[in-house]
């Protein structure tokens, strides 16, 4: 579904991604872990098309297309979804209207009928229940006055409604207490299917107790330095990231 080859990206002329290689197959869940500043969030944002990053090398194939050639909104319509690490607050636009506008853009692209306000409301209610969200949150302005945890839940609500093919979750677990994390994980597990794929970007292993990944990758200094099964996450939890840094350091010296 997704193939990243030698992806290099900069922000403000600073190189952040230094050659990422990653293959994500349909029906798979990949976890990308790594210490702060390793480039995890940059990778997520580059895949979604954030304008602050410039891709300097490499390519990304998504469903046979050149993903990097698509505008952010086209990526979304093609089924790429990014759950933001820091969701934005949008004054004066209700959560329901925002979601319906986005969903209908995606449906139009797929050649489906747009949902009217009533049809959409049914879908919204069902998904909000799944995420145990207050009904009032649908009419409130997008993320405005939401707590950190509510914002993250709102991201997963959007994911559940847009039903993407490739969902990228950027540090969704940060700011979530254990109960909220279980709710989010339940929604993600319900979303998982043989027809889609999920990339979970996280610093900590704890979310992976609830969302079991098929593959775990460790990102350090803009490169994937290690890949493995779900046990790799447990190893990181136990030993921290220092040994990865040391290993990577040795590698770099060897390369020099």
């Amino acid at each position, binding site marked *: 579904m997704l193939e990243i080859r030698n992806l290099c990206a900069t922000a403000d002329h600073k190189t952040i991604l230094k050659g990422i290689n990653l293959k994500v197959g349909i029906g798979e869940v990949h976890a990308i872990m790594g210490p702060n500043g390793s480039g995890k969030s940059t990778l997520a944002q580059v895949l979604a098309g954030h304008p602050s990053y410039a891709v300097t090398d490499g390519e990304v194939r998504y469903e046979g297309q050149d993903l990097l050639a698509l505008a952010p*909104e086209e990526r979304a319509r093609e089924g790429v979804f990014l759950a933001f690490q820091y969701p934005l607050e*949008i004054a004066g636009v209700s959560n329901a209207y925002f979601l319906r506008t986005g969903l209908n853009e995606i449906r139009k692209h797929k050649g489906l009928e747009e949902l009217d306000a009533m049809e959409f409301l049914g879908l919204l209610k069902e998904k909000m229940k799944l995420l145990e969200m207050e009904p009032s949150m649908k009419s409130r302005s997008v993320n405005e006055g939401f707590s950190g945890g509510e914002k993250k839940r709102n991201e997963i609500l959007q994911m559940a409604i847009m039903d993407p093919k490739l969902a990228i979750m950027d540090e969704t677990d940060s700011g979530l207490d254990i109960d909220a994390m279980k709710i989010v994980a339940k929604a993600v597990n319900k979303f998982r299917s043989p027809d889609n794929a999920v990339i979970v970007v996280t610093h900590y292993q704890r979310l992976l107790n609830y969302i079991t990944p098929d593959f775990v990758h460790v990102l350090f200094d803009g490169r994937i330095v290690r890949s493995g099964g779900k046990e790799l996450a447990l190893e990181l939890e136990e030993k921290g990231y220092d040994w990865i840094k040391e290993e990577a350091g040795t590698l770099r010296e060897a390369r020099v």
Partner: protein
Amino acid sequence: MTRIPIEANPYIENFDILEKTEFAKDPPWFRSLRKAAISHFAEKGFPTTREEEWRFTSVSSIATASFKPVPANRKDLFASGKIEPFLFGLKECARLVFVNGLYCEMLSQMPPRLPSRVRVENLARVLEESPDLVEGHLARYAPYGNNGFSALNTAFIRDGAYVFLPRGAEIEGFVHLLFVGDRNEALANVRNLIVAERGSRVAIVESFVSLEDSAHFTNTVTEIQVAGDASVDHYKIQNESSRAFHIGTTEVNVGKDSRFSSFSLSAGSRLARNNLNVCLDAPGGECALYGLYLLSGSQHIDNHTMITHAKPYCNSREFYKGIVDEKSRAVFNGRVVVVKDAQKTDARQTNKNLLLSDAAHVNAKPQLEIFADDVKCTHGATVGQLDEEALFYFKSRGIGEGAARALITYGFAKEVVARVPVEPIRLHLDRLVLRKLKQEGKGGEEM
């Protein structure tokens, strides 16, 4: 700006004629008020950009044009369907319609019954039939000395609305005052007087609109007295043609334990200036002023507000937002004065501006003048462009650039519109905002 020589001033010449004819039948107190006002104008003339209060707004285009009052005998009769878009779809609301500043009975309507002693009528009729009702009120809260436009307005008082609520009275729904301009060069000199006695409640909507794309000039003054324990909600919707000129002054006096709220939407006219002055004149008074200005093309809209905390224990809230596009220019000047003994004042002011083009311009000036020491006062003004991060958030949800910009912009305005508690007014404003932001066809539901 050059000052026009007084002897050549058409307004003064015109006054001299009217003074001997139409105005000759006025009671003596009124005649001397007119005369005092015109001499004030003769002395001061129109404001110039040399004056601090008019630094950013030149009115030379008004001063040098020749706007004339429409002859009093002209009956503006046209199909009532023409004003339908400016109404709120309400059958029984009290409505006074003025065309080029003069009352049009045919287009006006009254609910089946108003509470006893409540009066909602046109000022010309009151001045003719029972001028003693307004003596002592007229020009009491809106002194003609404030600026040349108020002086002119007072000298030429002809018509406008008179709304009176006796003790404890309440008008259901709201009173709609609709001012229509439909002729080039027409001067609509509108004067409204609203008196809410102790314990009364009323909501008043003033809408200013144009038929056709006419270049007319509205010079309007509204004075409002909110007596003790009373409540007045005032709405001003200014959406005149892009060739029109609008100078409006609203002067409000708020009594003990009373509340006043104002909502102002300025979207129309080539040049508009709104002066809104509220005096919290007794303890326990409060006011909330909300404003929204939407500019495009080469419009110039200036909102000057002043809240005077004249007595202790009063609250004021002010929240004005502006969306400034293309080559337009907006001015916001929010002055809050807390006099020496007005302790325990609580005043908060916010002004936010969104610039949508590189050629758009905003002058935002919050002004706090505090002479008391035990007060809570805050103010803040921001000028910014559309947030790129927010745009990306929309795009990442499949929403394209154009729609994303429109939605974020609309949301910015919506934050003010959403504060309007009366649903038909809120929906009307919502549609107006969408139209102005060129988002037609998306209304009909609240976003």
